[in-house]
């Protein structure tokens, strides 16, 4: 007898049973489909020396300022104070940009060194910037490079990488200095993803799937010089 009404949903799904022989049939089909896919010509050589980015994810994705709150006590801070600080930061950057001959140092809530470094690193126009809350070493910068909307994640050594659904196998790509390249999906949109690590900081770059390789290479060079 099921007392808990919520258990009824679980129990009702538990009663979904596949057709007879489905388990073996599916396994056979899986092997057949996998073999057929493996025979398709590949554009880049697949290397397995570096674990897929998905393997670095344990539990939650890094939190973005203003979007999550651990308790009601910090809810106001995350909801209002940090976004206001980010807006003031952008305003300061915008004003200082008008001054000749100097790139402004952003004052960021969170990890100033990480944020400033990320901002300095990004070519093109910055359209959004967010920081990890509660001292998390995590910066996300959205920017426009040659007309393309791009996102750069900069993660400290203790931060977990964000989860994306991988559409192709991640592989080290020599055209990008050994950075790991793959195509991913996020929010039902497809992106190209590059990931590399330097001095204990991890960079993850998301660019539209339509961006051509030479443009991406140029962007990567500017980000890593």
């Amino acid at each position, binding site marked *: *007898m*099921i007392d808990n*009404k*919520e258990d*009824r*949903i*679980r*129990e*009702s*799904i*538990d*009663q*979904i*049973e*596949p*057709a*007879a022989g*489905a*388990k073996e*049939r*599916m*396994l056979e*089909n*899986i*092997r057949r*489909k*996998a073999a057929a*896919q*493996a025979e398709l010509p590949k554009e880049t050589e*697949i290397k*397995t020396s570096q*674990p*897929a980015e*998905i*393997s670095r*994810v*344990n*539990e*939650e*994705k890094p939190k973005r300022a203003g*979007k*999550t709150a651990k308790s009601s006590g910090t809810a106001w801070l995350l909801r209002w104070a940090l976004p206001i600080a980010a807006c003031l930061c952008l305003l300061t950057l915008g004003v200082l940009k008008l001054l000749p001959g100097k790139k402004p140092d952003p004052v960021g809530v969170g990890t100033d060194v990480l944020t400033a470094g990320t901002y300095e690193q990004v070519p093109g126009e910055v359209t959004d910037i967010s920081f990890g809350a509660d001292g998390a070493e995590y910066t996300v910068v959205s920017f426009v490079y040659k007309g393309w909307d791009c996102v750069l994640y900069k993660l400290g050594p203790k931060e977990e990488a964000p*989860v994306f*659904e*991988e559409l192709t*196998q*991640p*592989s080290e790509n020599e055209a990008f200095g050994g950075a790991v390249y793959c195509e991913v*999906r*996020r*929010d*039902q949109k497809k992106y190209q993803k590059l990931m590399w690590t330097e001095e204990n900081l991890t960079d993850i770059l998301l660019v539209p799937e339509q961006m051509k390789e030479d443009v991406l290479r140029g962007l990567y060079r500017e980000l890593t010089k």
Partner: protein
Amino acid sequence: MSETALRTDADFEAFYERHWLYVYRLCYTYMCSEADAEDCAEDVFVKVLNGTFSFKDETHERKWLTVTAINLCKDRLKSYAHRNVDSLDREDMPEIAAPEPEDDLSEVREAVLELPPKLKDVIWLYYFNGYSTDEIATMLDRPPSTVRNQMRDARNLLKERLKTDFGSE
């Protein structure tokens, strides 16, 4: 805990053994057809077999499979809608030989299957996997407030259909 790398056939078969029924049931919840559910579930495992993934633990495996299966099913449903194609052989497939349900669970199951895909996400992750709304928000990359609203909408639809409350947070 050491990572699980699916490097050999035996590794993959053990992985498949652990998760095939869960993935099938998840796909069935979206596709509502045995053939489509099998097809989608197979494609999920093909991604694993042809990928170079390694998972931290079974929880990580389950989470990855859940997100991948949901996205795959939704893409498939979109392509069916775009091509005006009905689900594969739905009427031709033999009926599921389900055991006699207790408490009219078949009605509950039908109500869940009739939910819109976006609401199925949160129902599945909350009731079937036991994730909190914050965890669901992270996995689906939606604001927690959106997830809570969707939970409320899903419960209201189930309540309307089944004339019974399904609790609140």
